[in-house]
């Protein structure tokens, strides 16, 4: 069994909203680990994602710290670098589709606005991470990845971005105050510019065949 910390805590990028991301690598099913607290992977699957050049493999490779190594061997470090990331365009398109589904749900008088906004945050963050990994040598795995793409950053005021992030925290960690109707209204008004930004990233990935 090998346990690693990754994400904000391993970057030192800590805030009151930070949670602690933990990875457990186990042999087969291990009931000791709650999947709400750990990302649980088998050794075989970790090797597969390394071989696929999966973004999560790159995240772990670049930003994880060992917490417990049952054999005192750093399993992830021994795997070396993952293969190059080859699916930037495919992944960017999938996160654009995820955004579109959530936006449609919101515009169809959704009764689950917080969940929809949370999904939009997930799609924004992940498309930016995949884009940065596929197109630059400085991949950004942080919650603010969309605001850190330099000239290609999402042009959204931080307080508006924060509304989506707040929804994500409510939906996943059950923490924070419910969104006000004003916040929902503000978020709704920003959807077209977010869609435009995501479409540009997809187009750029496709046209330049950079990924």
């Amino acid at each position, binding site marked *: 069994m090998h346990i690693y910390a990754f994400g904000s805590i391993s970057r030192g990028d800590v805030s009151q909203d930070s949670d602690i991301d933990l990875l457990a690598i186990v042999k087969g099913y291990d009931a000791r680990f709650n*999947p709400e607290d750990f990302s649980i*992977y088998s050794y075989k699957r970790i090797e597969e994602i390394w071989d696929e050049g999966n973004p999560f493999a790159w995240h772990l490779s670049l930003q994880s710290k060992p917490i417990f190594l049952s054999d005192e061997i750093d399993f992830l470090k021994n795997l070396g670098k993952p293969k190059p990331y080859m699916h930037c365009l495919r992944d960017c398109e999938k996160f654009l589709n995820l955004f579109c589904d959530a936006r449609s749900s919101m515009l169809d008088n959704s*009764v689950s606005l917080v969940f929809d906004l949370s999904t939009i945050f997930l799609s924004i963050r992940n498309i930016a991470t995949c884009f940065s990994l596929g197109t630059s040598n400085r991949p950004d795995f942080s919650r603010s990845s969309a605001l850190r793409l330099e000239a290609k950053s999402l042009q959204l005021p931080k307080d508006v971005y924060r509304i989506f992030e707040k929804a994500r925290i*409510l939906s996943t960690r059950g*923490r924070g105050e419910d969104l006000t109707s004003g916040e929902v209204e503000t978020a709704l008004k920003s959807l077209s510019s977010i869609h435009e930004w995501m479409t540009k990233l997809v187009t750029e990935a496709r046209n330049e065949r950079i990924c």
Partner: protein
Amino acid sequence: MSEFVNRMTVQRRVLQIVNRKKWEKEALFGLSGKAIERWLTINLIDPKNRLAILVKEISSKLFFLASKSQEQVSEDYRLLSEDVSNITERLEHEVNQIA
């Protein structure tokens, strides 16, 4: 990735069903254990309530699917997906009775 998208779609469907009822204080925001606990507490819902049990059951199946999908055990995934689908139907019936 498609399994990930499927899980998001299931979550949305479940939340649409549960939140069809206008809850006294807050809607259910997500299917994580912590979001469910918040919803139960703030709306004074008995955790032993049939609806609460069904929601928790779907949540645990979805999280289990998330870790199972990483194992790529497609048969297990298919069976569990059917389970989730059956529980969702029971949930819909339950909400229809109280909404």
